[in-house]
C-alpha cells in the first residue's frame, strides 16, 4: 500500500508492505540512525517521534505512519547545527559506544517538548524505555538536565 507522511519536515510518499515495520521502512529510506537493538520494544534504540510522542519504531507497522508527522535523529540537526539536546549530550559526555544515542536523544527531545523543565524523577521516567549498557545513565541524566536548562 501507499503511505504518505511527513518525515523530518519533508513529505514522503512510499509503497510499503502490510507487515513492514516502521523501523525497516525508515532505514530503507536512509534513516540509518534508527537502530535495531532487540526488535521487541524493550531497548529503545529505534525510538522515533511520531506526532510528538516517542515510540519504538520496531513495534509500529509502516502503514500506521500514514498521515503522521515523524522525526528521526537525522532531522534534529539543521545545516550542521546541533539541536540543543544533541549539544547537551556531547557536552555532558553522555555518549560512549553511540548505539543507544539516537534513541536516547529522541526520547529526551520528546520529553522536553512536553515538559521543558522536568525534575530528575521526570527525566528518569521519560528515559526509562531506553537502555544503555555503557554509561550507567548518569551522564545521560546530566545531559537532559543541561538541555532543559539551556532552552
Amino acid at each position, binding site marked *: 500500500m501507499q503511505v504518505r507522511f511527513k518525515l523530518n519536515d519533508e513529505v514522503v510518499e512510499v509503497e510499503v508492505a502490510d507487515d513492514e515495520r516502521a523501523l525497516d521502512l525508515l532505514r530503507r529510506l536512509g534513516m*540509518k540512525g534508527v537502530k*535495531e537493538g532487540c*526488535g521487541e520494544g*524493550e531497548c529503545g534504540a529505534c525510538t522515533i517521534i511520531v506526532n510528538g510522542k516517542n515510540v519504538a519504531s520496531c513495534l509500529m507497522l509502516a502503514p500506521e505512519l500514514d498521515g503522521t508527522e515523524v522525526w528521526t535523529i537525522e532531522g534534529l540537526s539543521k545545516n550542521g547545527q546541533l539541536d540543543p539536546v544533541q549539544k547537551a549530550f556531547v557536552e555532558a559526555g553522555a555518549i560512549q559506544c553511540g548505539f543507544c544515542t539516537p534513541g536516547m536523544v529522541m526520547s529526551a527531545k520528546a520529553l522536553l517538548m512536553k515538559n521543558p523543565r522536568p525534575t530528575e524523577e521526570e527525566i528518569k521516567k521519560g528515559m526509562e524505555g531506553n537502555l544503555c*549498557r555503557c*554509561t550507567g*545513565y548518569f551522564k545521560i541524566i546530566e545531559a537532559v538536565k543541561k538541555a532543559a536548562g539551556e532552552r
Partner: protein
Amino acid sequence: MSIRSTEEIGYSIIGREVKRVDAVQKVTGQAKFVADFDMKGMLYGALVLSRHARARVKHIDTSYARSLKGVRAILTHKDIPGENQLGEVINDMPCLVPEGDEVRYYGDVVALVAADTLKIANEAADMVKVEYEELEPVLTIEEALEGKIRVHPSGNIVTSKKIRKGNVELGFLRSDVIIEDDFYAHYQEHTYLETQGILAIFDSDYGLTIYGSMQCPYYVQDAVPRVLGLPLNRVRVIQAETGGAFGGKEEIPSHVAAQCALLAYHTRRPVLLVYPREVDIQTTSKRHPIKSHYKIGLSKNGKINAIEVVAHMDVGAYATLSPIVMYRSLIHAAGAYDVPNVKIDIDGVYTNKVPCGAFRGFGTPQVFFAIESMIDEAAERLKMDPIELRLKNALRVGSRTATAHLLKESVGAVQTIEHAVKISNYEALKRHVAEFNVKNRFKKRGIGVSHIIYGVSLGAAGQHLDAASALVQVHKDGSVSLHIGNTEMGQGAKTVMTMIASEVLGQSMDRIYMANPDTSYVQDSGPTVASRTTVFSGNALKEACEKIKRRMTEYFAKTREVSTDDVIFEGGTVRTLDGAKKTSFDALARECDAANVKLIETGWFRTPKLHWDPKTGLGEAYVTYAYATQIVVVEVDLLTGRTNVTEGYTSHDVGKKLNPVGLIGQVQGGFVQGMGYAISEELKTENGKILTDNFNTYIIPTVMDIPKKLKIDFVEDEFKTGPFGAKGIGEPSLMPTPAAIANAISNAIGKRVRRIPATPEYVMSLLE
C-alpha cells in the same frame, strides 16, 4: 642534541576535560555501524542452529530450502574450503557441525544461508531439514566431573590451573580463626546494545574485505583465512563502529566473520550477517559460572595467614578463551592481599551449554565476590571493621602478591582504601544506616566494602600477544592521521589516542584524525582487551609521534638557526622558548614536506618478558597492577527480597588520569553493569537452552535502577612504563561492584549472600 619532551614542559592536553572526538558523528546518527552499510547486490545471511543441547547430526537436507526463490546459497560443512575449525586457544569448535558429528549446545551452527532479503534468508533457514539423534547432555559442573558422558572425546576437563605459595597447612595451624564457605557466581550476558554483525565483500583482485563490529580485528584476520584456506594477505579486516562489546566481541566476531565470509566466498556477492538479539544471546559467550570453596585462616590481630581455594568454572560446550580467563581467575582468586600461604586449584569443565568466554573483568568478579565475602565474614568473626581488616592486609610497595610477585612501584592500594573511607564519610554513613534500620521494620539498609587488584594487560599467559603497533602520518597541510591496532568500542580509545598525539605533537586535537583499525595498516597489535589499549597502543603511538616530532624539531632548528632544545610544540604552533621564532604546525609541516622530510612513522611497544611458572603459579603474573576500593549502601525490602543500591563510593588507582571525562564514564558504566550482575541479571536455562534471550526476560539495569549517588575518586600512583604514567581502567571499573553489593546485602539482612545475582527470589530464600 636534545629534544624537549612534553613531560618536561608540562602537559597541555593530558588530564584535561575534552569532548569525545567521535561524539558528533554518534549524536547525529551518522556513525556507521555494520548494519548501516548498503552495498549494491548485497545479500543477507542467516544461521541454521542446533535445536538440541547434545545430538548427533544424522543428515542435513538443504534441497527444500534451496528451492525458495531468492536463496543464493545454503552451505554446510562440505562447503568449507579450508579448515572447519574455530577457536582462538583450543581447536575444539567447528565452524559448521558436520554430519556424523555431535552438536554440543543449542547454539551450534549446522548450516548457513544467503538470500536476496533477510526475510527469505530466515525462511530458508527454517526450511533446512536436519535429522538428529538426540543424546543425553551434560548440564552441570557435577555431571561433567562425574564424566559418565563426555562432551568432547578428550574428556570434560578443559584445563586445570594452580598456585602453590608457602605452606597453607602451616598457615592454618598458626591461625586463630579459620573460616570455610561455598560460593556460586552465575552467568552474565553482555547485552551490548548492538548485536554481532559482519559485512564480507569479495573482490577478485584483492580477496576478502571484512567490516564488522569487533574488539579484535587480528583475531578475525586469523580465523577467516583459516576457514577459507587463504593466506592472511588476502583478507583485510576493518572495524566498523562497534556498539559496545565488554569482552563479548573479543573472539565471537571471528566466528561471525568466518560464517559471513563463507557466504561471500561462495556467492561472490557482498553479504551482511547481523545476529538478531535472540540468536546473539542463545549462541554467543557469557561470563563463566564459578563454584568455589574458600578457606581462610587469620591471626587474632587480623593478619591473613593462609587462603585455600578450590574452584570450578563452567566453560560450556567449547573452550573459546576459557584457558586465559581461568588464568586471570587464578591470579586474582586470593584477592588483593599480602598473604604468605596460598593454595589455589581451578578446573574448567565442559558442559553442553553456551560457551563462556571474555567478559569485562575476565573471570575475576566471581572470585572477588567469594574472597571479599570471606574477608567480611572474617572481620565479623574478629569484631573488626571490614575497612580495618583490609587495610591490615593490603598490598604496598615491597609486598608480594598471591603469586609472590614483588611490587616495586605504582601500588595505590592503601590510598584507594583511605580515599573510599574519606569520600563516603564512612563513620557517618554507618551511623545513618544504623539509624535507618532502627526506624524501619520491613526495609533494611546495609553497607558493603570491597577491595580489588587488577593485573593490567594480558600477563604472563598471553605475552605472545602483548605488543602493539601504530602508524602516524603528518600530512603536508599539518593534519595528522593515526592508525592503531586496537579498537574503539565506546570506551573512548579514539579520544585518548588523539589526546596523546596532540600532547606530543602540539597539534590541536581537531586537526588529528584516528581511523578505525584496518589490518592492512599496522602489524598485529593483539586484542583490545584486558584494559591494555591505553598502555600498549598509547605507548606505540607516542613513540611514532615522537619520531616525527624529532625530525620536525631538527628541521625547525636548522632552518631557524636555533638549538633543538630551544624548540617547543604547543597549541598548534612551533616556537623557540622565548617566542622569537614561531610558526604554525601546519606551515612547518608544509615546509618539511617540501624539504623531503619523512613525516610518516611507526611505533612499537612491548613489555619486558615476565617470568611466571605454571607449575607453581608463582612469578611475575602481570606487568603491573591497578587497585580499587568500593563502598556501597543498599536497601533491601524484606517483604519482596528486592535490593536497591542507593549510594556508591569508589576509588581507583589509575596510575595517571589521561582523559578524566572518559575515566568517569568508564567507572559509572562499569558500576551499573556490575550492579546488574549482582542483583538482577538472571540468565535462565532449561535443558541447556537459554530462556532469557531478550531484554524482556534478561533484566539489565534501566535509568530507574541506578543509585542516587555515585562518588568517584582517582588515585594517581604513576606507572613508569605507562604512557605518561597511566594504567588501565576498562575492567577495574566493574570488578569491585558485585562483591561490594553482595556484602552490603549480607550486612543489611544479617545472612551471608553466597550466590550472585542475589535476585529477590534468592534473598527471600535467605530470609525464610
